[in-house]
């Protein structure tokens, strides 16, 4: 029976831990592309300049054929419009006078370096002006030509824009793109698995087909190459399909800096150091407050308190407190520590630690009480018999003997303090912030692993992009708590061995 239950527990543990470990490790160990290395170098200064330059040159060389094809295609589109523009030029020259001047003015923007969009705008403008003419019947040919060309090119341009959009998602900014502020648009995909995802979105167009009114829409997948049959862009798709590795240069990387670097652009890039440090501060802070108060309270309850009704009431209050939901502690912390006595001007690690300390206090008290009560009475007797006062006995004999049990209580509470979200939502946690120095913990809030896991999984604007960060955080939190527990258990084992001789 015992063996069976162990088996069941082990199976449950593996079921829970396996995805955490496997997907969490993928935040640390994954196939990273050249974009990742570029981010690391530009944002965090990791890597050598020559390496990055060399790689960028290689990658650009691999991508250049696609860019060239795009440029060629755009030229073709412009050439189509150019015909219409030339016609307008000819018309203007033929008409002369006021109309010529007004048309020439408008056509000025359609110069050789202008983009397809600008050409289109110019032609729309021209057409409007021609249609507004009093004797527009004379220009019907030109107007028709403009309309026809515009329509065709607009359709082509729309397809091209979609394709460029998909390519940008994959490779990063295309040559000639204006660089915008948000970091995420400066780089392509940093992870190979995301590359494959976006490669698929580049090669295929997904649409919803609502043709059947009885059923819900169906997701249709058409190869994007169909949109560009017969154009210069047609070979681009096969090229991207076959040469993605050369364009991205994926390499298996151990990204241990995930643990030690800040995050950039709402966790799109970078690591989780502020969160890890925040969790660390909160846990240690909670311990600093809870352990002395808890142990001293336990000593009082065991050694000094006389069995009156008040003390029984106190004991039952402590037991009840152990069962209060953590959100209540969070709200209490907000109301008391922040709004009433204002331990800090804003949310802070201090307020969060105090709230967490309150939450774990009952556990610490209970475990310490049990440990102290378990100390054999003979030790106390012997100490008192040698002339030790009550407090000296507690300090020099009982506490050291009770230390393993007290440490057990501390271990349990530490795991809880590190992983609880509700107490820190209102008192300490923010979504984004810098890693704090120890002095700043007194008055600054901090990101923390439990809260940020929730935040990244639900409230983030691009949840699917940062799945690896979410799992990485979960894995790190589990590993952190496990490590803390192992240290404390090892410590306890050492002390136990010493006590037992």
């Amino acid at each position, binding site marked *: 029976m015992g063996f069976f239950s162990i088996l069941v527990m082990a199976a449950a543990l593996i079921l829970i831990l396996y995805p955490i470990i496997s997907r969490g490790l993928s935040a640390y160990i994954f196939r990273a592309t050249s974009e990742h290395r570029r981010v690391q170098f530009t944002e965090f200064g990791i890597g050598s300049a020559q390496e990055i330059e060399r790689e960028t040159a290689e990658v650009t060389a691999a991508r250049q054929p696609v860019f060239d094809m795009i440029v060629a295609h755009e030229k073709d589109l412009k050439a189509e419009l150019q015909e219409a523009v030339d016609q307008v030029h000819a018309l203007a020259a033929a008409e002369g006078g006021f109309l010529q001047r007004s048309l020439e003015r408008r056509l000025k923007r359609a110069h050789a370096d202008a983009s397809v969009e600008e050409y289109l705008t110019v032609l729309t403008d021209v057409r409007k002006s021609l249609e507004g003419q009093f004797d527009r019947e004379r220009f019907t040919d030109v107007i028709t030509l403009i309309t026809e060309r515009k329509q065709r090119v607009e359709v082509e341009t729309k397809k091209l824009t979609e394709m460029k959009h998909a390519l940008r998602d994959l490779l990063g900014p295309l040559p000639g793109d204006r660089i*915008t*502020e*948000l*970091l995420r*648009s400066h780089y392509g995909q940093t992870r190979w698995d995301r590359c494959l995802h976006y490669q698929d979105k580049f090669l295929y167009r*997904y649409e*919803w087909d*609502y043709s059947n*009114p*009885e*059923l*819900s*829409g*169906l*997701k249709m997948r058409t190869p994007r190459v169909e949109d560009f049959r017969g154009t210069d862009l047609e070979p681009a798709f096969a090229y991207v399909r076959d040469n993605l590795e050369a364009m991205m240069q994926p390499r298996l990387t151990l990204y241990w800096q995930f643990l*030690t670097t800040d995050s*950039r*652009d*709402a966790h799109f890039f970078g690591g989780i*150091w502020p969160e890890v*440090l925040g969790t*660390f501060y909160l846990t240690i802070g909670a311990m600093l407050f809870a352990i002395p108060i808890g142990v001293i309270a336990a000593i009082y309850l065991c050694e000094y308190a006389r069995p009156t009704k008040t003390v029984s009431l106190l004991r039952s209050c402590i037991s009840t407190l152990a069962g209060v939901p953590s959100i209540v502690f969070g709200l209490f912390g907000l109301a008391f520590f*922040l*709004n009433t006595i204002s331990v800090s*001007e*804003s*949310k802070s690690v201090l307020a969060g630690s105090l709230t967490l300390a309150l939450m774990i206090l009952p556990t610490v008290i209970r475990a310490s009480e049990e440990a102290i009560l378990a100390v054999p009475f003979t030790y106390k007797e012997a100490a008192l018999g040698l002339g030790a006062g009550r407090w000296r006995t507690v300090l020099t004999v009982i506490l*050291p003997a009770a230390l393993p049990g007290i440490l057990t209580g501390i271990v349990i509470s530490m795991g809880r303090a590190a992983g609880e979200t509700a107490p820190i*939502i*209102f008192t300490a*946690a*923010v*979504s*984004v*912030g*810098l*890693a*704090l*120095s*120890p002095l*700043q913990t007194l*008055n*600054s*809030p*901090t*990101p923390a692993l439990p809260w940020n896991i929730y*935040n990244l999984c*639900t*409230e*983030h*604007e*691009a*949840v*699917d992009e940062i799945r690896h960060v979410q799992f990485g955080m979960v894995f790190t939190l589990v590993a952190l708590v496990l490590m803390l527990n192992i240290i404390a258990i090892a*410590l306890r084992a*050492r*002390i136990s061995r*010493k006590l037992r001789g």
Partner: protein
Amino acid sequence: MKKMFKKIANCAAAAALTAVMAGPVCAGETIVMDGSTTVGPIAKAFAEFYMRQNPGVNITVGESGSGNGAKSLMNKTCQVANMSRFMKDTEFKAAADTGVMPVAHVVALDGLPILVHPSNAVKNLTVAQVREIFMGKITNWKQVGGPDLAIVSVSRDTNSGTYECFNELVMGGEKIGERTEYVGSNGAIRQRVQSTPAAIGYAGLAFVDDTVKALSINGISASEATVRNGTYPIARPLFMFTDGYPKLGSHLHRLVTLCLTEEGNSMIKETGFIATTDY
């Protein structure tokens, strides 16, 4: 025993030293922003941009909801309250009582999109239809030209500024039906809608991606033009509230007026919202 304590003390000192050296020793200012999850992406982008330009400043961004943002501002626990709705008069009164004078800065515009699952054939609804769906009067998609599925309406929680705006602009005072689900953030709305073919919800513009479909309302879809000139019926401004107008030239002032700069403009556009000005 003594040796062990010494070891522990050494480890703790080493860890503390590493932390001190690893974290930036900012002697500078801290600005705390708190509030709406809708304004969140903008606030986070602004914060990072500003911190990069001014390394001595630590800006933290919390996302606990517009209502909580207002409360924090009143309790003076934050300097900037991001809110996706204007402050209610009860909040103004409470603020005045505690000596806080909230000043609104419009940071961006949002055309509140009504989201459905991409497989839903419905492309357009009127405001009245949306209202009746959320009231519970219209219960099946086929009543509005969609598939034969029972409608699952998802709303934000009452603490949310997005909810308040929706309530004001769409519901117009009518009560939301009992069968509506409530979720806590824009991201949660999107997740609910993208996983449920019969769902309908609303979020901020930044949260629209290709896993959900935004409907046009009264025939008008949300775009820069339609939101700016008010033709899109469910358009709203996004605010950052401060306590009084910040001192000119201070970090706080530059942060809340970032939306008026070219870089701020481009960041707002990139997140998906609509900038108040047009460069």
